[in-house]
């Protein structure tokens, strides 16, 4: 009887399992298989021979790959730090009760609702031309004497990129943190006040420790998103000038869809997958411990 039920249970989950295998596992294994082959759509005369780890070796010895990895890391660190800091401030503001709070909360979410491509186009428009909005404002207010071409400087080109990402995703971080703030028992603040803690002490001793799980969730989401950053940079700088703002995902896209090198591109995809997977594991380790601790 029990056995029969178990069999029925397996039968019932079978379709779901099959779908997961089909849409998650099969493509992954296929990419893995491709990554050990030379497969260049553009040069059919080279065939599709097994090349062992050659594609991985190429990636790991390719300067552009390491530069792209560096750009990805830079983007993660700057954008996620800013987003967490600003998101916390925004969450604290949204958490207070005042008139029109509902409307303000809705308005704060607008950037996050906007499609990334549209947001990226708007930011490019703001920064692009010498007579663009940013240059006009900066020269008008006396910050700069002459209009500045942001997108031809290897360093300055990061400014619109990071700004656009911070503008776009800070509301998302704020939303996560707001939920965390609302779960903090208000009596804790009363107790702290009675013990003579000022607003800053209340923030550092009550709010921050209790907000830690929410902060970690926000950190995970944002980091994993930033590892895969593609559309924003594709539209804003295209990875330029040269390849000065090219992240891993854009490099992989370029190899796969512009140079049509499927084998090498698959190897790059697998590397990105491993990187994301490793990051997720580390976070789950850290976060899991924290969340599973009773009373957290």
């Amino acid at each position, binding site marked *: 009887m029990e056995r029969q039920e178990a069999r029925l249970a397996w039968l019932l989950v079978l379709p779901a399992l099959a779908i997961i295998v089909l849409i998650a596992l099969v493509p992954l294994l296929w990419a893995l298989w491709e990554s050990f082959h030379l497969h260049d*759509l*553009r*040069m059919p005369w080279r065939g599709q021979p097994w090349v062992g780890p050659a594609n991985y070796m190429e990636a790991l010895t390719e300067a552009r790959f390491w530069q792209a990895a560096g750009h990805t890391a830079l983007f993660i660190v700057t954008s996620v730090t800013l987003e967490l800091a600003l998101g916390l401030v925004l969450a604290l503001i949204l958490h207070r009760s005042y008139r029109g709070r509902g409307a303000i909360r809705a308005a704060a979410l607008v950037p996050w609702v906007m499609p990334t491509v549209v947001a990226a186009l708007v930011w490019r428009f703001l920064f692009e031309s010498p007579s663009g909005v940013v240059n006009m404002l900066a020269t008008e207010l006396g910050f700069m004497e002459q209009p500045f071409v942001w997108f031809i400087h*290897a360093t300055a080109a990061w400014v619109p990129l990071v700004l656009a990402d911070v503008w776009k995703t800070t509301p998302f971080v704020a939303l996560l943190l707001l939920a965390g703030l609302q779960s903090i028992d208000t009596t804790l603040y009363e107790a702290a006040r009675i013990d003579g803690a000022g607003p800053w002490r209340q923030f550092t001793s009550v709010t921050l420790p209790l907000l830690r799980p929410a902060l970690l969730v926000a950190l995970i989401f944002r980091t994993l998103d930033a590892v895969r950053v593609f559309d924003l940079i594709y539209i804003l700088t295209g990875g*330029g*000038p*040269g390849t000065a703002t090219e992240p891993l995902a854009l490099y992989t896209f370029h190899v796969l869809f512009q140079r049509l090198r499927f084998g090498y591109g698959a190897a790059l995809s697998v590397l990105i997958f491993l990187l994301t997977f490793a990051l997720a594991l580390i976070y789950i380790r850290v976060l899991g411990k924290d969340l599973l601790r009773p009373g957290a």
Partner: protein
Amino acid sequence: MRTALLGAFATAALTIAACGGQAPRGISISFPASAVGAEAEVLQHQLERFMRNHPDIQVVQRKTPDAADQRRQLYVQWLNAGASDPDILQLDVIWTPEFAAAGWILPLDPFAPKVEDFFPATVAANRWQGKLYALPWFVDVGMLYWRTDVLTHPPDSFADLNRQATEVRKRDGLSFGFLWQGARYEGLVTVFLEHLGGFGGRILDEEGRVVVDSSPAIRALTYMRDSIYRDAVVPAVVLTWQEEQTRFAFQNGQAVLMRNWPYAATLLQNRDESRVAGKFAVASMPATPDGSPTATLGGSQLAINSNSDHPRAAYAVIVYLTQPEQMLERAQLVGQYPTRPALYASEALADALAVPPAQVQQIIEHAVPRPVTPVYAELSDILQIHLHRALTRQQEPAEALVEAAQAMRKLLADAGLTQAKHPQHGQGE
């Protein structure tokens, strides 16, 4: 439910019957082409005329994207899959060797085309391993647009260009001296090629070896960089500009000189929108004594899919579309330049073009193809990145070109294109 289904089947059956009734013609040829604008209309007219003359052949237009990169990706995917459709391919001049080496398009020599009627450079660009793989449909060339209201003659050397542009810019208060396309894309390579030729350099030599790190090349790239940052003749913003941004600035009367393709001439002559209508002319790019004036060759070619079921009929369509009458009509309606030199003496062409045909013909005769190699797209990609790095001062020109040359040599070696100049074909074409 059942009746709804039956209804759907009935409609489908009727549709199929209707289509079948419309196509009693023997052969159907498909032709991927632009889906929008005047270009699509001209083609439509011409194909209709063709079908009236050839009742046994039906030509179907396949709508494809206008953006070159997207169109190429689509072709590569179709052809890799061995599709017999589309029968005819409209190729950018730089794709012919790529498609020929892959065995995706048919050699046209068995049809005995009269190649001597076309500009030699346009025919050369369509040859691979001595065989002809496409016929030139219309030709594009890089040209120097100069303002006849502020200059007395076009610059004859790069030094002269810098001097004139600087003087006039100061005297007449124009915003920009010289404009070209400097964003990181194919356009940058075409602009570089024109400077390169002017300094006597090349990308590949006759043997197909990479020589883009030679001293003329370094001088050319250094000159391009210096004209931005040292001489302030070229504004730094061109490093983010493609054709249209340069055309808008020139059209608004903000620049003394501009490098652009022929399409701009037609638009610049439009008095409603252009402030420089009637105030500009075209010339060849300048050169140093070591080089010669150079124009990058562009344009569209027509080729036949190797897997086409009806190559003979497809060739008949290509021959029809490349006839003088069709070329003149294209020139008239969309301003595209014929690939037949004989037409440049005709009155009809003089009426059709925004600039004198004799000037255009002279520039086309200076036109050089980009490297004719199956891996051009990859070579260009390497060049684009390194040129852009040098021009945005992330690298010295010499360093950038040496790195580019190394990467290009590795690419050619990997593709099997160095020792034997020709790739080995896995299967027969």
